[in-house]
């Protein structure tokens, strides 16, 4: 069971264990809290504490040197008129809304081709999975920078068929596209989740449908897709949350400045520049909370929409 289904079942299940049951079970509070101690300390000191602190800082002006100065909603009103921030939101939304569906579609497609007991499956699976392990590294971002450069691999290949390609990452209209492509390239991880999901669809559904004369396409729409929808949903939620936080690739490919002309200025990159470039910590905190709200909203919409398209067998 996935983290997400576990979480929703936590909220669904009502009424704690009865008092009698509790007594019978016996509690090991002391032992439990000792085992949980590192996690509890981390939760307070590294997660919840800093969250509260950053919420506070988002209402202040703070540059690390002078003590924070309360400025009320200043940071947030500033965000309303910050054109670069609006641009960075647009870049990030494009990246998420194009990159995630595209990556999942490729992952599903390849998983479907791989599924049916194909010879050489482990080999293919490794080949497709490898990029998703390497994709987050600086080294691959460097490679990408070369491949999509003016005289990079892509244009060398295009030149062989007589096409003069643009400088993909130096042209504002294609720079983001090449980073999205890098995201799609790492489809291996969701592909493996899809493969595991496909394997759990009972074979008899297909056999029954075949007897009824269903076509391959019908089987896909009526059996595979509904049965796989919880997995698709799971992948979608996780990939969206993760993609909103992408940073390394845009940072390396653009040389840290989100260029050319802010076309790869991800929200996270802008946040980094504000917080750790200009030490405008108050503004960076406000941005971080805004990001949390956006991700929360996307996830909530996902969960609401799920009621209409995600199919649970049980």
């Amino acid at each position, binding site marked *: 069971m996935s983290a997400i289904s576990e979480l929703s079942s936590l909220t669904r299940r009502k009424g704690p264990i009865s008092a009698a049951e509790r007594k019978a079970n016996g509690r*090991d509070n002391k032992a439990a809290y000792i085992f949980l101690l590192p*996690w509890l300390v981390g939760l307070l000191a590294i997660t919840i*504490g*800093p969250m509260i602190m950053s919420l506070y*800082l988002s209402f202040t002006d703070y540059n690390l040197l002078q003590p924070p100065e309360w400025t009320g909603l200043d940071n947030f009103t500033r965000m309303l008129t910050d054109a670069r921030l609006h641009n960075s939101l647009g870049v990030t939304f494009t990246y998420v809304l194009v990159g995630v569906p595209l990556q999942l579609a490729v992952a599903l497609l390849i998983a479907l081709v791989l599924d049916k007991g194909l010879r050489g499956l482990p080999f293919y699976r490794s080949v497709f999975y490898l990029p998703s392990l390497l994709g987050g590294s600086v080294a691959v971002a460097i490679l990408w920078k070369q491949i999509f450069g003016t005289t990079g691999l892509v244009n060398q290949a295009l030149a062989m068929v007589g096409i003069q390609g643009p400088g993909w990452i130096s042209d504002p209209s294609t720079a983001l596209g090449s980073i999205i492509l890098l995201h799609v390239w790492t489809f291996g991880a969701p592909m493996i*989740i899809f493969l595991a999901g496909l394997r759990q669809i009972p074979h008899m559904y297909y056999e029954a449908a075949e007897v009824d004369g269903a076509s391959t396409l019908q089987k896909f729409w009526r059996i595979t897709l509904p049965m796989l929808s919880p997995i698709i949903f799971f*992948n979608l939620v996780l990939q969206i949350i993760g993609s909103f936080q992408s940073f390394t690739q845009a940072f390396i490919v653009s040389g840290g400045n989100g260029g050319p002309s802010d076309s790869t200025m991800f929200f996270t990159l802008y946040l980094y520049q504000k*917080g750790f470039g200009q030490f405008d910590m108050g503004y960076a905190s406000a941005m971080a909370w805004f990001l949390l709200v956006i991700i929360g909203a996307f996830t909530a919409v996902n969960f609401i929409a799920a009621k209409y398209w995600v199919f649970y067998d049980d």
Partner: protein
Amino acid sequence: MTKIQTLPAADSKSVDSTSKPLPPRRPRESRGNLAFSRSARTKGLVKHAILILTGGLMIYPLVWMVVSSLRPNDLIFREPGLWLNSLEMSNYTDGWSALTHPFGHYMINSAIVVVGSILGNLISCSMAAYAFARLQFNGKKLFFGIMLLTIMLPFHVVIVPQYILFSQIGWVNTFWPLIVPKLLATDAFFIFLMVQFIRGIPKELDEAARIDGAGHPRIFLRVILPLMVPALATTTIFTFIWTWNDFFGALIYLTDPDMFTVPVALRAFVDSQSSTSWGSLFAMSIVSLLPVFLVFLFGQRFLIKGIATTGIK
């Protein structure tokens, strides 16, 4: 779906086959006639063609990078093919000593952070997982819910105050900010992974140990830990790869070249490079990917299982 189940065609045999892992399926086509199986064979060929083409296209840049790192510099911008006329090792020797320290220095730094992070995750996450999977305590549901939520929490929300905290205790340009959070189980999905695994271990084993007079520390150390080695292996491998690749944390906390880990060292290399040193940049990139690649080769089984059961990246 229930309608389909009641169709007469679902004979006893096929119903049976769903309850257990399917036996090596006889190709469905073999039931059909010859023409049908021939079209199935073409279908298989088409599938292989698609897979080889897409797979080749995906891996090509990586292979090309390896080949290019063994070529003279100017060829990198002229030669899209994979043909090697001679082996040029100078990119590796040049790249190794291109920064303030030999590249090995940064690899050792990375290794320190990696080992610390792995130990941290193994100890702290397995302890928390034992409590969540086996112990009854007040607030368990609430804490478990919070733990699951923190898996999805974007780290940007905490990074500014964390930075302030760590800089106030003088930990900037030390490895502590990268290791201590792991000792405090902030990589919560490993807790989740281990909880899932422990739930699959028969409870009778704990009970037998308890009857023999073992307390929780003993049950944890002697019964549960030895049985959850696969989950520990998955955690080790993922922690290795993620920590080795981690750029953001190192970028923020490590500004002194003495302390650079491999990703920030590579970044410094990109920034400092003149247009002529792509060869050595590629060479060091490959050196930096090599450990991940080796872990992938030998730990694939655990990686794939880990992803399939918990859906982590």
